[in-house]
């Protein structure tokens, strides 16, 4: 069986929080689900529930990346460049530019 691979990309704080929940929802449905916090958002520190969602996503072989080192450090996200996430997208069955852009 071929599993779906889905990547959601976030460009503002509000969408990041809900978008990680969406990724987790897909992982629960037996998909490989990833999130990527793109360059714009200045993230806030995850609360306990959000940090747990990230942990659960990783337990199900998903992950959340971020292109900004400060976001990676703040919320324990995997560092990635725009070029690297672009290459990862080529391997995805579904690509989801999530929500709206807010600088």
């Amino acid at each position, binding site marked *: 069986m071929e599993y779906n691979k889905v990547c959601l990309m976030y*460009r503002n704080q509000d969408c990041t929080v809900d978008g990680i929940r969406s990724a987790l929802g897909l992982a629960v449905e037996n998909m490989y689900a990833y999130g990527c916090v*793109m*360059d714009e958002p200045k993230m806030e520190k995850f609360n306990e529930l959000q940090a747990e969602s990230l942990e659960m996503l990783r337990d199900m072989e998903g992950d959340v990346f971020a292109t900004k080192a400060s976001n990676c450090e703040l919320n324990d996200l995997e560092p990635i460049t*725009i*070029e690297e*996430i*672009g*290459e990862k*997208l*080529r391997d995805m*069955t*579904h*690509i989801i*530019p999530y*929500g*709206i*852009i807010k600088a």
Partner: protein
Amino acid sequence: MKILNVYRSEPDDTTKKLVEIVSRDRDADAFDLNVDSPDYDALVDKIFVADQTICWW
């Protein structure tokens, strides 16, 4: 692999870079939704023949 890139707003540098990488060596088509009266009929035809549709911000 036939990719359909749909633009909901004017693509910025980040979007342009991602589109370039995702579309590389693939049969890529595009549709601009960021107009006054999009031709939804034409868009649906393009969606039906694409293997993957990506609606960029």
